[in-house]
């Protein structure tokens, strides 16, 4: 990960100095692929890890660190389409949802200090909940699928993903 630039701007709580990073292409490709493979392969042995949305967390991470909404859109769309291609869904379902997640994550990074672990925890929790809810809305509205949305369960899995995202982001910061 290479520091691409540094800028100071007026955000919440006064002036802040934020940094923008750049990664090598291999990292931009392999990390999402690894996350998708993890989600595809690992739940075969640990079923409860089905709800660990590593592709989502990777999208959030890259969008937060890159601080560029347009690029966040592209990250999210790309990862989502790949995820769609490996699922039984029509292409675009995860793509649309992760596009929105990438955009909002990049937009949030322009306003908040996303280096803070607590903020990362909250963002991980929030984006997981948003991802699941919006997917449920799209599935019902566009595909007419009778999916169930259980808020309590979703909140619980959101906490699990938030708990994972803090060390994961710390690990990805080392790349």
């Amino acid at each position: 990960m290479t520091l691409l630039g540094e800028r100071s701007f007026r955000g919440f709580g006064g002036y802040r100095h934020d940094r923008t990073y750049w990664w090598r292409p291999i990292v931009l490709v392999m990390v999402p692929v690894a996350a998708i493979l993890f989600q595809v392969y690992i739940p075969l042995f640990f079923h409860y890890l089905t709800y660990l949305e590593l592709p989502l967390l990777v999208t959030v991470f890259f969008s937060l660190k890159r601080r560029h909404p347009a690029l966040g859109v592209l990250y999210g769309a790309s990862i989502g389409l790949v995820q769609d291609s490996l699922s039984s869904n029509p292409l675009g379902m995860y793509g649309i949802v992760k596009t929105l997640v990438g955009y909002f994550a990049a937009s949030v990074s322009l306003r908040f200090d996303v280096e803070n672990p607590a903020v990362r925890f909250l963002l991980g929790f929030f984006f997981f909940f948003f991802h699941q809810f919006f997917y449920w809305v799209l599935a019902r509205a566009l595909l007419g699928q009778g999916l169930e949305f259980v808020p309590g369960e979703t909140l619980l899995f959101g906490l699990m993903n938030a708990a994972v995202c803090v060390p994961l982001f710390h690990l990805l910061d080392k790349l």
Partner: protein
Amino acid sequence: MDFLIRRYRNLTVLLLVIFAQLLLLAYQVRGNQEARLIRVWAVTGVMPLARLLEGLRGGTAGFLENYFALVGVREESERIKKENTRLKLENQYLKTELATADRVRALGAFQARTPSKLIAARIIGTGSGANSKVVFVDRGSTSGVARGMAVMTEDGIVGKIVATYPTASQVVLITDATFAAGVISQKNRVHGTLKGQGHSVCMIDHVQNEEKVEPGEWFYTSGDDRVLPKGLPVGQVKIARAGKYVQEIYLAPSGLERGLEEVLIVIEGIHQPIPEGPQAQQSLRLLPAPPPEAGVEPTAQSRGLTTEADRLIDRYRRVGAAQKHVFGEGLPGSRPPDFNLNPDAAAGAAAVPPNATKPPAAPPPATSGGTPPGSSNAPRPPSAAAPPAAPTKP
């Protein structure tokens, strides 16, 4: 434009990417009817607009069409309302005519069965004055109506003619205070004078307190006044009570109970006997008793005599008949019939031929606790009256 694109570059990219993916989704997904989602979306998006346009077109055309079709509806409605009103009036008129025809038919039937000569007349007016009970009928002297003739309906007398004109006559009703007529009661033949009171109830005067008049009793014209023929119903007693000198008897005139529209004028009155039976106006009409069956002698049971006294009287009658004894005859001290005799056995013995051997006399009855016949404590036959005769009337 370039400024806007640069200003909202991120948002534009977002919308473009999402739109592209939506198109991708639409192209892939097939709905329940195997139609691609993009086709479904297109149809769903376009059809409401088409429906809106069609609704506007149809509504406009329907409005114009209805507007032109409704021209003249107001006039048509007014015409139908007028026709409906006319038909209602006509219907009411026909109903009234039908009721009139019924009354006229009833009057005609009464006219046919009464011996007096009657003519029908219609009430055409009433007298002036609040207290006057006077009406005018459409029959006058040209129809043979003369002063003093009785006026009645099939229910009873109404009044009498007090003035005649060529085409009309004036009738004073029996409720008028100046009206008076001789009447007689049906049950006890009590004579009295019917007087009007100026209201719906008449009074019968000149009936002594000793004479018996009961509420509900019918009064008829007596013919004593030489105006009204005898035997016309007048009314039923409502109140009958003893007065200071004479009885106070109030009577509801039967001829006025159902209103007055058509009446009968008695041109030639013929006296009739006072009927014995109840008036036809009575609400309860009794059938006559059924005739006795042929060959069956009525017995106590058949007559419904089921009390102990009835059975005892019946036994005494059969005992007397078996011994050819007539109750009520014979001097005191003469031999009474043997009441211990079995009447059925005695009747069977009487039926055998005379040359047959006489059956042994019946053993004397046990006297323990009993009473010899003929003693003063023996049950007395109903000697005060003859044995009950076979019922001849119900």
